[in-house]
């Protein structure tokens, strides 16, 4: 007669040092092995869609900043492209180049935090602080151009709020030369550290077809081996003028699609973003960034769905406009919201300590999950 054991419910509550904000995980444990994970979200639901319906088009931009507060430049980018497509206006070349540079800088800053917190969850406190020290340099670049460190409201519909600072180009080049060696230092300190590899290789393996079925996108999908990057798929803005590869998980230390692959894909992506910035920084044409900003934005009646490659995945804006000043409905397809769904699938059969490692590798931001 088998020994009757019953599972223990462990509640990793909304206040937990490593759950990237306010996410409650209800773990059903059999001893230390996980039987089932039920994430409870909604602790940071700030009613973005209700606000978007009550505000005019340019006023919604500060609220898009606050959704994915680690990559707010890219949130503006997605919203602004959607409204411009609806209005059918074409922004000047200079604005396109500056938007790409700012977007890629924001991708590096967001990946730095993602990698830092992933290392922090596994116990390595020092790399987290080195990465935050490098991130401060990017934040000072942003602060010099638009005045804010974290939530910028920089990209307006049809242009930008400020032109770039005169010595922005010089400082960005300095940053690129400063940043390359720190990536190799990080690799020595954390990426190829045996204990880190032990903790992340073969953990939370995401097979490719479940990933597609669950709609996972971004570094988590590329970690499973599919080179799917919206910058190459939909080639929005002027990404087709720059050549950069899409890093894909090859399973160097474990199987393809484990936590280590998702982590390593983010490091390679930072390298690619540096290449894009290098190519774009020298060809910025001159012109006025506020030329195409319409005085009153009243788009025609209709719907639009555009998607951009947010550092966490495919960020989509579905806007329905009924012809007056306020949008009728703005639905945001948040990448973290969708990537978190697959989390329950990944954790089955692992230990409690792995839950944190897997959560760190799929890199979610709760502001975006709960909107």
């Amino acid at each position: 007669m088998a020994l009757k054991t019953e599972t223990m419910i462990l509640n990793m509550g909304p206040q937990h040092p490593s759950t990237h904000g306010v996410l409650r995980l209800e773990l059903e444990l059999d001893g230390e092995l996980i039987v089932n994970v039920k994430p409870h979200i909604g602790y940071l639901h700030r009613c973005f869609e209700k606000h978007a319906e009550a505000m005019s088009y340019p006023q919604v931009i500060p609220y898009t900043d606050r959704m994915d507060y680690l990559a707010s430049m890219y949130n503006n980018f997605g919203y602004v492209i959607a409204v411009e497509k609806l209005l059918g206006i074409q922004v000047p070349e200079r604005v396109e180049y500056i938007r790409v540079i700012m977007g890629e800088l924001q991708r590096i800053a967001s990946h730095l935090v993602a990698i830092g917190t992933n290392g922090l969850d596994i116990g390595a406190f020092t790399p987290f602080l080195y990465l935050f020290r490098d991130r401060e340099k990017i934040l000072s670049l942003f602060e010099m151009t638009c005045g804010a460190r974290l939530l910028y409201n920089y990209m307006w519909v049809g242009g930008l709020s400020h032109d770039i600072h005169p010595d922005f180009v010089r400082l960005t080049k300095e940053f690129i030369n400063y940043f390359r060696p720190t990536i190799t230092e990080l690799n020595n300190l954390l990426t190829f550290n045996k204990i880190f590899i032990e903790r992340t290789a073969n953990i939370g393996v995401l097979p490719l077809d479940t990933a597609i079925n669950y709609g996972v996108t971004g570094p988590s999908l590329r970690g499973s081996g599919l080179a799917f990057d919206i910058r190459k798929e939909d080639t929005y803005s002027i990404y087709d003028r720059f050549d950069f590869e899409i890093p894909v998980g090859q399973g160097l230390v474990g199987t393809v699609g484990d936590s280590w692959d998702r982590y390593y894909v983010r490091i390679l992506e930072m390298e690619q973003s540096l290449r894009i910035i290098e190519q774009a920084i020298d060809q910025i044409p001159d012109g006025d960034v506020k030329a195409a900003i319409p005085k009153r934005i009243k788009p025609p009646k209709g719907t639009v769905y555009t998607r951009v490659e947010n550092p966490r995945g495919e960020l989509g804006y579905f806007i329905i406009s009924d012809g007056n000043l306020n949008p009728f409905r703005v639905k945001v397809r948040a990448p973290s919201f969708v990537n978190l769904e697959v989390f329950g699938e990944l954790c089955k059969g692992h230990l409690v300590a792995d839950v944190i490692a897997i959560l760190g590798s799929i890199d979610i931001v709760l502001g975006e999950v709960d909107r």
Partner: protein
Amino acid sequence: MYQFLFNLSGSEIIATIFTAAVILVFILLFVLFAVWFERKVSAHMQDRLGPMRVGWHGVLQTIADFVKMLQKEDIIATEADRKLYTIAPVLVFTGSFAAYAAIPFSSKLLGSEVEVGIFYLLAVSSFVVAGILMAGWSSNNKYSLLGAMRSAAQIVSYEIPTALVVLSIVMLTGTLSLEKISQLQTAYFWNWNIFGGPEFSLAKFLLIPFMFVGFLIIYISTLAEVNRTPFDIPEAESELVAGYFTEYCGMKWAMFMLSEYANMFAVSAIVTILFFGGYQSPFGYLGNSIGAEWLVPFEQAFWFIAKGIFFVFVQMWLRWTLPRLRVDQLMTVCWKYLIPYAFLNLIIVGFISLL
């Protein structure tokens, strides 16, 4: 020390109390220094400055923490098992404090010349396990229960590699008492056990690599015994919030911290005695050369504390570099890697000592 006081006061009780008091004061002072030292070391390793505003370079920081913790309200959870809850920190501290009885700080300052020094040390460290289990169970909180289970398993299983390496040293030196082991490794660092022991013979050179392997094994396993990274699963912040002392606050938690740092020094003291010549100074004694005999014990104490603090620094250095191991990996490291290597080392050292 005890002998000197015994002749002075004539009664054992006063002598023992006084020696214990001297060592307790040393531990308290060391812990005050170690907490500040850890925060400054970790800060400078991360390119920041650490406590600065509380005295010159934050020197009074630990005192401020201590006095603040005096003022904290002492919450005991209602369902917590009140008696066990209060005894646990005391037991954990006695476990680490008792270890100091047998540690020779210098030829004069010695708790008690007990013949079976090393054996006593290994035995006493199991007090800590009992205290941790009590703390985990009595605070009636899932996290502390999990944390206590893990740390008990960890400490008990890491005692085996420690014991094996200690055996290899005991085989070499032939005695169990820490006092004699330190005396054997007389002055000048090449006579230390890490470099093959005092006699000048072929065995000495053969021993060096295996002594170094032994040192590595005992250092890693004592790290695990003290719950320091990469083995600090019991207080793994990211998973188990704060392991077995989740429910403790104010002075009870301070007692846990006190015993953790005291344990750190005790463990690095054992490593210095076994391998790095205990209180022997690496370059001969100033006291002897200038003829001031009474200076030698103080020099010995200085060298002993310096080596101890160096190894405590290495523990901190490891803490701020490495990520944390998972529980089952920790067990594989102990059972599949450390213990086989320790056995192999023991056998080879045995053969060499026969030469």
